[in-house]
């Protein structure tokens, strides 16, 4: 790790608690539907025309809906390390919110370590570094310690 200060890759999408981070979404005051990314001006539930939302921290654990990896460098605005390091990606189902959230899987965990239904937790890890900061984002990590190498 470099000595650069940590900054979120996208402002306000997750807490910066490096031990127990949460994604930050919103919840419709009227119908209780959650939104991530945050939705605060209109509710997408067709049975609801609310304009009142509260910001909420989403569950930081869930189970794998599916998973894959990226073997090739994505185009901009992705900022790739040189040389490019392939990474796994997981779609994780949050039980309370009943939604699926995509994210990279932490470094060192590959698709061979994953399975549909596996318990995962949210962590923060470096996405890339620029001149001023180390930009961190949310990533998924297997909850069983044995999943990580």
């Amino acid at each position, binding site marked *: 790790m470099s000595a650069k200060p940590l900054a979120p890759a996208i402002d306000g999408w997750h807490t910066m608690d490096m031990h127990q981070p949460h994604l930050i979404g919103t919840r419709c005051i009227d119908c209780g539907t959650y939104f991530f990314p945050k939705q605060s001006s209109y509710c997408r539930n067709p049975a609801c025309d609310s304009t009142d939302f509260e910001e909420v921290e989403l569950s930081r654990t869930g189970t794998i809906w599916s998973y894959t990896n990226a073997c*090739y460098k994505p185009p901009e605005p992705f900022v790739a390390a040189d040389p490019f390091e392939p990474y796994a*990606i997981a779609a994780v189902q949050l039980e309370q919110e009943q939604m699926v959230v995509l994210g990279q899987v932490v470094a060192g965990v590959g698709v061979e370590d994953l399975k549909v239904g596996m318990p995962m937790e949210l962590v923060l890890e470096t996405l890339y570094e620029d001149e001023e900061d180390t930009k961190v984002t949310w990533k998924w990590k297997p909850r069983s310690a044995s999943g990580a190498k």
Partner: protein
Amino acid sequence: MSQEIAILGAGMHPWGKWGKYFVEYGVAAAREALADSGVPWQDVRFVSGAATIRCGYPGYVAGATFAQALGWQGAEVNTSYAACASGSQALAAARTKILSGACDVALVVGADTTPKGFLAPAKGYRPEDPDWVRFYLGVTNPTYFGLYARRRMDLYGDTLEDFAAVKVKNAAIGSKNPRARYQKCFTTEEVAASAMVADPLRLMDICATSDGGAALIVSSVEYAKKIGKGDAPRIAAISTVTPTFASGVVEMPDIATDSAAAAGIEASSYRSSIPLKAYEEAGIGPEDISLAEVYDLSTALELDWIEDLRLAPRGEAAQLLRNGDTSVGGKIPVNASGGLACFGEAVPAQALSQVCELTWQLRGQAGERQVEGARVGITANQGLFGHGSSVIVKR
């Protein structure tokens, strides 16, 4: 059955990387469709274009662009954009015009020239755009295809060999299609030797992007009868319905699904909603289908579509494939054109090219690809943000 329109002509410019301007492909396809229909250009009173967003301003006003290129003759114009479903929406606009009695004959046309490499989003820091967000976080189009494919493996026991078999099947039939970009047979071993892109999908499991153009001449049934083509294939349904909230399938380019915490989960994604509406509109069921043209953006996605179209129970499409049922000569041929595997995606032309293939199949003009006794065909394709389209063509 007054909701039907007739397909009088179909035409395509061959798919490839020709490097010409998109208008040239569209005009070639339109002229072939016109010649096929026998209708003089001056008699076409509505030009419905499928837009391309990658070829500058003429692409945004595709209807007018093609009408001008074919020679202004005073027809009304329209342009539709819905990513890969653009052609179906342009077709739907023509159908509405014809069924309302506002015109007898319409040209529907779409064409594209694709840039090299990934289709990257607009630049800057733009977290309000989900397409920007997912690329920023390292989620590309193959990511979504990989997620769907891996889920099939873990839930239904599909194998890498099954996915490769889809490519082998489509390549074999596409090798007999003179309009396809890739007219070459491949083996399972060749698929397995190609580079991994988004596990479990390899380079040869994922479709390329291509240049191409497709066009249809459509008319009222009365007009078709008047010119002695009362037995022409008919459009029996065009479905572009959205899913219902909350959809539990993460769709390109979103980073998360709807939350079903309040509304409850709607089990059917748009992929399974669309065919239901199409079947209902046509007054038929999956058992009536002779062949299907589905959007095989990846090999595994063809298997998802087969189940979404109710041609196999959920989780059993791979068995259909293993039985040879989805090959030409099998019980329910899928992608007798060779599919996207052999064409590559030419976004605004692709949905129309599917209808062109069904038209030729239903007329018995598909040559070595012919599905014997084809009476009813269905198409399925996808746009972005969880929408898409399905068209039913019948004799």
